[in-house]
């Protein structure tokens, strides 16, 4: 018993020591847990977040392009597409192989995907396949476990409800080039498009918006467990064009099969109400990528469907240039409204004969009659009197042969020659060149837009500049108001003479465009026809008429018409160019009449349906006392 007691005492001491050590170790574990869980909590919480939340940028929705009344000209349509986040796939190549087994990919697509995967950082998803159909979608959904990192989401493709009718004014978008995608990571996002032409290109930044993001919780295998946050980004702004879709449709319809261009301007503000270029193309082609064959045929077409002829097509203005010549002469003082010059049907200069139109002798006439009947010999003489430099100076004032600053890409300035210009290019300037300059032939090359600007300036006496964008995000752009423009630097009396002459052109039986006068009560159009030679006629042709239907299409002269209405208080200006359409009076003026009639009946100028601008942040009420309190001070 005694031994047992001694054993027990020793054991108790030792057991208590062991127990104390155990308690001490547990306490140490507790302290360590306190450090980990309480003191270093924020650090580990962040690491846990980084573990589970993965973020991916998403393309913003591209802004709409509408006409002035809110009709959508370029919109977005939703479709399904498959994306791939490399960062979420343990073995990207295996995932791609699995995907290719489910969804057919062309060798081109596979090459593009391989390139994109090599180029882009892991957090930028790469487009695998656009425009998924139901069988593809189902195949992907069913095989989700084999496709870590593959995301099926709604994408937007660009749609153009008016198709070719507005292809040039609105333009088109296309996928960014690999080079663009490298310089701007936002462009690398699937679904991002870059405007290539027209308003899509000009307002690309406004339309693009800012990217959003999707935060998803992913597990260790990269499988998305749930969506934590979804920020759609800032959609691009709505760009409202000055275009009136109705007028535009009519313009396209009236051009029909003819190659050419029509521009209708608000004469007082320079807003482009209609701008058609024929033939056109389907702008939606470019969103998905143009098939090579289609691209070839577009490029080869001699009628050049891809070019916006309204702003970059260069045409000899022909007789539509005559008002400018007259204004230049009047400004220079060599011509007055009463100056009488004689037309014998031709002008001989040296050994060269310059014929009047149709070889007709107009007799002794003043400037009004010369414009009314479109006498060439009268203007040959005026051109010789005033000289090409002064004509060019007036042309610049009228917006011809100069950069008009239109808000569309690839606008051509055109050319009105001067002596300096000729000297710089080593061209010998013969007097004969000055003669033909008087009737808008020779070196002079102008765009339909410039011609429309010219006639708008004559009509309004204001130096309006043509522009197509009216509102961005509901905000009216400068230039929409006539007061935004300076008065034209031309004597009002000279303008009045020209306006009167142009009135006679359309509204008197002797006028060249009498057949195309308006039939609306109390409203008249004023204008000027033009028939411009495009071909250096042979001597035989010169003996006949140079505008003969027997000539090949490409050799026939261009038909032009510029005009404005109403004559009393001009609101609309128009320029029509029909390529190889022979007489301006015959093919261009009737189109102008119909469009003018529509414009006057519907009267879009100055009217629109503005987009409601986003509400301004509420301002602090002025009478609120607490608003003036320094922070931290409370009112008791």
């Amino acid at each position, binding site marked *: 018993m005694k031994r047992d007691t001694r*054993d*027990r005492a020793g*054991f108790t001491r030792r*057991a208590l020591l062991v*127990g104390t050590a155990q308690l001490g170790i547990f306490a140490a574990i507790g302290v360590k847990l306190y450090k980990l*869980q309480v003191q270093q*909590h924020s650090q580990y*919480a962040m690491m846990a977040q980084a*573990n589970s939340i993965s973020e991916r940028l998403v393309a913003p929705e591209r802004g709409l392009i509408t006409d002035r009344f809110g009709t959508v000209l370029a919109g977005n349509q939703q479709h399904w597409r498959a994306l791939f986040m490399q960062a979420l796939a343990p073995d990207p190549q295996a995932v791609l192989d699995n995907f290719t087994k489910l969804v057919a990919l062309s060798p081109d697509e596979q090459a593009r995907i391989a390139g994109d995967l090599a180029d882009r950082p892991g957090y930028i998803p790469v487009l695998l396949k656009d425009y998924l159909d139901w069988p593809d979608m189902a195949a992907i959904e069913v095989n989700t476990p084999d496709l870590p990192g593959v995301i099926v989401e709604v994408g937007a493709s660009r749609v153009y409800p008016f198709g070719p009718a507005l292809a040039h004014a609105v333009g088109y978008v296309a996928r960014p080039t690999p080079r663009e995608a490298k310089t701007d990571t936002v462009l690398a996002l699937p679904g991002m498009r870059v405007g290539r032409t027209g308003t899509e290109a000009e307002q690309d930044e406004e339309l693009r918006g800012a990217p959003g993001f999707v935060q998803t919780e992913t*597990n260790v295998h990269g499988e998305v467990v749930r969506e934590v946050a979804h920020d759609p980004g800032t959609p691009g702004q709505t760009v409202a064009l000055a275009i009136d879709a109705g007028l535009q449709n009519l313009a396209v319809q009236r051009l029909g099969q003819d190659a050419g261009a029509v521009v209708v301007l608000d004469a007082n503000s320079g807003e482009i109400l209609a701008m058609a270029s024929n033939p056109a193309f389907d702008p939606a082609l470019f969103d998905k990528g143009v098939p090579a064959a289609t691209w070839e045929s577009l490029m080869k077409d001699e009628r050049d469907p891809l070019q916006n002829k309204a702003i970059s097509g260069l045409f000899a203005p022909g007789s539509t240039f005559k008002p400018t010549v007259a204004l230049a002469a009047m400004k220079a003082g060599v011509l007055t409204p009463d100056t009488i010059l004689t037309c014998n049907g031709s002008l001989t200069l040296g050994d060269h004969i310059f014929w009047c139109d149709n070889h007709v002798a107009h007799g002794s006439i003043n400037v009004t009659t010369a414009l009314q009947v479109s006498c060439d010999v009268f203007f040959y003489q005026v051109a010789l009197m005033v000289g090409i430099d002064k004509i060019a100076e007036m042309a610049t004032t009228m917006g011809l042969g100069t950069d008009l600053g239109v808000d569309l890409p690839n606008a051509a300035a055109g050319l009105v020659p001067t002596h300096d210009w000729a000297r710089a290019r080593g061209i010998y300037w013969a007097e004969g060149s000055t003669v033909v300059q008087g009737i808008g032939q020779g070196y002079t090359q102008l765009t339909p837009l410039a011609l429309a600007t010219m006639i708008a300036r004559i009509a309004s006496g204001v130096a309006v500049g043509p522009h197509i964008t009216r509102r961005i995000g509901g905000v009216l752009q400068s230039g929409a108001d006539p007061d935004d423009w300076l008065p034209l630097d031309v004597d009002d009396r000279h303008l009045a003479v020209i306006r009167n002459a142009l009135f006679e052109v359309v509204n008197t039986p002797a006028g060249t465009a009498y057949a195309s006068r308006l039939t609306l009560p109390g409203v008249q159009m004023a204008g000027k026809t033009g028939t411009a030679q495009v071909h250096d006629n042979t001597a035989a042709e010169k003996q006949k008429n140079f505008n003969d239907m027997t000539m090949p299409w490409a050799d026939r002269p261009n038909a032009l018409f510029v005009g404005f209405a109403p004559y009393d208080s001009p609101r609309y200006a128009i320029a029509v160019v029909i390529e190889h359409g022979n007489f301006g009076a015959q093919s261009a003026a009737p189109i102008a009449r119909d469009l003018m009639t529509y414009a006057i009946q519907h009267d879009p100028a100055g009217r629109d349906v503005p987009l409601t601008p986003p509400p301004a942040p509420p301002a602090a009420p002025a009478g609120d006392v607490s608003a003036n309190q320094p922070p931290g001070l409370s009112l008791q």
Partner: protein
Amino acid sequence: MINNSVALHRPFRDRSFGLVRKFLAINWLFVLCVCLLAGVGYTALYSAAGGASQPYANSQLYRFLTALLMMLVIAMVDIRIIARLSWVSYAIGVVLLLVVMKFGHTGLGAKRWMTLGGVEIQPSELMKLFLTLALASYFCRASHERVGNILFLLPAVAVVLLPVALILKEPNLGTAVITALIGASVMYGAGVRWWKFAIVVVVIAVAAPVLYHHLHDYQRARIITFLNPGSDPLGAGYNIIQSKIALGSGGFSGQGYLHGTQNQLNFLPEKQTDFVFTIIAEEFGFIGSMAVLALLFSIVGIALYTALRCQHQFGRLVALGIGANFFLYCFVNLSMVMGLIPVGGVPLPLISYGGSALTAVMLGFGVLMSVHVHRDVEFAAKDF
């Protein structure tokens, strides 16, 4: 004083002590603590399955209930019968270790499992209990002088080293060290001087680096896998980093039940087994981990209390060894979860998913309760 205690606790000299009285004499506070820990385990495993009782929580519950029944039955088996079976169980344990070495299946990079009658068992887990019994048997009647005798100690050391060597060979360093430490605890409780342990520790500490230095590269690599069995596929230290993130992100009050991102999003492989503590810590925070820590220590404390109250040396040493076993389980597992030691393969008893450790621990608790119930019995010579 002794008479008083005899008067208070009627000594049972025979086996007629009624089963009902034995049943009532079980330490029910201890049983409650065990059940609470099993409840914690159920909660954690329910969460590990993403908020489902399948596949872990329910099957673990059935295992626990079976093990609990076994524990209560063993609690009523006379401790002297158990004492008499000490060496037999030790022999069986050694044989099982040899069998598992030869025929066992490999799990997580080490051969340590075997199937016995449809139940997966880990002989090394059982061995820890059997070693405790054997050592207690060896030391319980030894006088203080004999315990001080090196020659008397050497067979005991051999008894410890044989299973330790076999477990090392599996390889399972964690369990081997725990087994050695349990042996050391029992020997210390029996009266072996602390400096003798110190000498062993110093010898190992000095020898280890020298040995390591003279090893070939492939041998070193083997030691590294040995230290870290089931080496993780996602790179060195991945488990530990994810485990620490889970603990740390729990904060003071936790991310909320079923809302721990580390757990729910599977950032921890095998979280339902060795890393089960991270689920509690992440979802219930520091408060939750402290509560579990307190429950775990209450088991250790009650085991110690049982040892101190026991009237016979065998019971004391057994209770001390079983307490040390449970404590070492907790210590190694928690240290591993916190990234303090690079050892794997040690579950958190009663909480981790898995039957083998649970069965072994509950078997030990049955013996512990038997010690408690039979704390006042007297041993006769024939009992050994």
